């Protein structure tokens, strides 16, 4: 079937003023929401204080100033959720390109510049992450307190705050190792940098030499990412609940990142098409992207459930503590169930049929739903551990998320203008243009 759609392989993306204006509206709305959220929390009368009153702080201190809690702690937690979430999405952009290259995938050749643009955002997030750790580390991570590690005080008395379990993990849970995990982001960026360089050179030179170079780089990147993403997951999120551990956690977070990344790639492609670009991408390519989102949503559920069921069934106190904080806490119970609904039932039923994967409007709805779902996934991973009974969801969370989205879109939009939208000398481009399933 020959399609009669006219397309231009040399097209370049122009970040139009109209698009920029829309992003700035989101940014400004985000800042306004954020300011409202801060004002509500700082001057009282917000609903999370009411929650704390209603459900009681175990220490008896409630509401304002209770147990050293202030809105700044909540800000730190929210910053951390968004930074980890967007680092994942950005990293998955590079991972997507690497997988396609390592597996000699043809169908995605025409859209590979979209995920490829994501990688340029990595160093920004790396710096942000390091800054947040230096500023907010003690609030986010219990293990950063040095008093946990000394068996005796300076005067020779036994240290009442000594924590044998955390002290036993000191080889991993230390600031140096944390900085190593942040450095992973820069290593991912380095891999991206060289993949990108070769990809751009391919546009000028043609031939297959660059293709093989990218393949080698991609394979190395995937091997490195398999280990580093898992370690990063333990460090960035699992260590918040310091006493708790799960052997599934690395995969669980990776699955969450992967679905979010795929949804972001799909949405970017769809929005580019709405603006008149990427005409060569038709419903067959979207079908494949939809299949990816569908399949990895189920994969996420599998990993999530594998972690949950064993803990639920074995009922060992040190393991169940994690789920009691989330599942049996009225503050987070909604997020817990919304998480399963938006990340499993919604994409599972929404993208099940072939027609749904080929219709842009359904794809868009499901992508937004899945992205919201995985943000909630990270919310319920991080907030209960950091804020305990003081957590909440309000203007501050929405505003901060909008700011992060705005900056991300600005950066990616700008990165897309830096190179032609189609890798026109990609050896498999013909296969992609004639893709039919």
């Amino acid at each position, binding site marked *: *079937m020959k399609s009669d759609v006219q397309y231009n392989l040399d097209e370049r993306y122009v970040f139009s003023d109209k698009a920029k204006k829309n992003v700035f509206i989101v940014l400004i709305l985000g800042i306004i929401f954020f300011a409202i959220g801060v004002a509500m929390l700082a001057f009282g009368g917000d609903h999370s204080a009411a929650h704390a009153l209603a459900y009681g702080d175990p220490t008896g201190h409630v509401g304002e100033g209770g147990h050293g809690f202030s809105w700044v702690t909540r800000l730190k937690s929210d910053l951390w959720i968004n930074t980890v979430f967007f680092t994942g999405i950005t990293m998955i952009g590079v991972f997507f390109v690497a997988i396609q290259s390592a597996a000699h995938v043809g169908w995605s050749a025409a859209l590979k510049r979209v995920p490829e643009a994501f990688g340029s955002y990595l160093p920004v997030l790396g710096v942000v992450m390091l800054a947040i750790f230096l500023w907010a580390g003690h609030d986010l991570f219990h293990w950063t307190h040095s008093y946990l590690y000394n068996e005796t005080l300076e005067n020779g008395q036994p240290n009442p705050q000594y924590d044998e379990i955390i002290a036993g993990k000191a080889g991993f849970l230390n600031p140096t190792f944390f900085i190593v995990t942040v450095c992973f982001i820069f290593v991912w960026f380095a891999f991206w940098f060289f993949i990108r360089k070769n990809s751009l050179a391919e546009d000028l030179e043609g031939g297959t030499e660059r293709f093989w170079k990218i393949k080698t780089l991609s394979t190395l990147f995937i091997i490195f990412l398999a280990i580093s993403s898992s370690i990063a997951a333990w460090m960035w999120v699992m260590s918040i609940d310091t006493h708790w551990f799960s052997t599934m956690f690395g995969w669980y977070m990776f699955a969450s990142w992967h679905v979010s990344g795929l949804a972001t790639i799909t949405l970017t492609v769809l929005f580019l098409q709405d603006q008149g670009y990427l005409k060569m991408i038709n419903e067959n390519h979207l079908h494949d992207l939809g299949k990816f989102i569908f399949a990895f949503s189920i994969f996420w559920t599998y990993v999530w*459930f594998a972690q*949950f*069921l064993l803990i*639920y*069934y*074995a*009922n060992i106190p040190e393991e169940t503590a994690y789920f009691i904080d989330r599942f049996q806490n009225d503050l987070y119970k909604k997020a817990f169930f919304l998480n399963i609904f938006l990340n499993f039932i919604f994409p599972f039923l929404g993208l*099940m*049929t*072939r027609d749904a994967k080929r219709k842009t409007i359904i794809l868009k709805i499901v992508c937004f739903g899945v992205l919201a779902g995985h943000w909630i996934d990270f919310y319920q991973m991080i907030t209960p551990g950091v804020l305990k009974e003081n957590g909440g969801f309000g203007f501050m969370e929405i505003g901060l998320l909008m700011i992060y989205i705005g900056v991300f879109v600005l950066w990616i939009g700008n990165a897309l203008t830096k190179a032609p939208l189609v890798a026109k000398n990609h050896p498999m481009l013909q296969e992609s243009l004639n893709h*039919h399933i």
Partner: protein
Amino acid sequence: MEKNKHFLVGIFDDQDELLHAVEHIRHAGVKIHEVFTPYPIHTLEHELGYKRSYMPRAAFLFGATGTTLAIAMQSGMMGIDWPMIIGGKSFLAIPDFVPVTFESTVLLASFGMVGTFLVACGLHPLKAPRLFDRRSTDDKLVMAIDLGNNSLSEDQIKAVLKEAHANEIYRKDFTDEDNSESFLTYLVDLFTKGVTSSSRKLN
């Protein structure tokens, strides 16, 4: 009712020729019964004007049946028939049911699909498969046109096939006996000869 079936068979060598031929033949108003190819040909099903298969819907229904049965079975056993406390959980501990429910869903969906596939392809035991040309499993693309289903005469269709560059054109008849086999014959053949009469006739 007349059970004898009469077909015209056209043999093609090249997939592009076949695709053009299909377009030409359908354009001439001839209904194509089926095309047999040794390997899948992209867009052929589109050219033949096939509607979407009902298989996915069948799969969903079989899967849903499996889910329902598994949940009913476990709730019945663990909740009503013989309630037991296991690991301090409630009688209807839904998370515990998930693995069995999942397996049962997959089992029924896959078994159901094997059966549906056999029925949909006409490969179930009592039906004698009609093999038009053995070479369709080797290197030839075989097109079958049901004469009883077309208003054009045999000669007219032959002419259309010729125009469409078919390499060989011949008539193939399936008799009443070929089309319906008695269950007894089937079983006797299966056990005495190790092969059913329908497969023998394929030669």
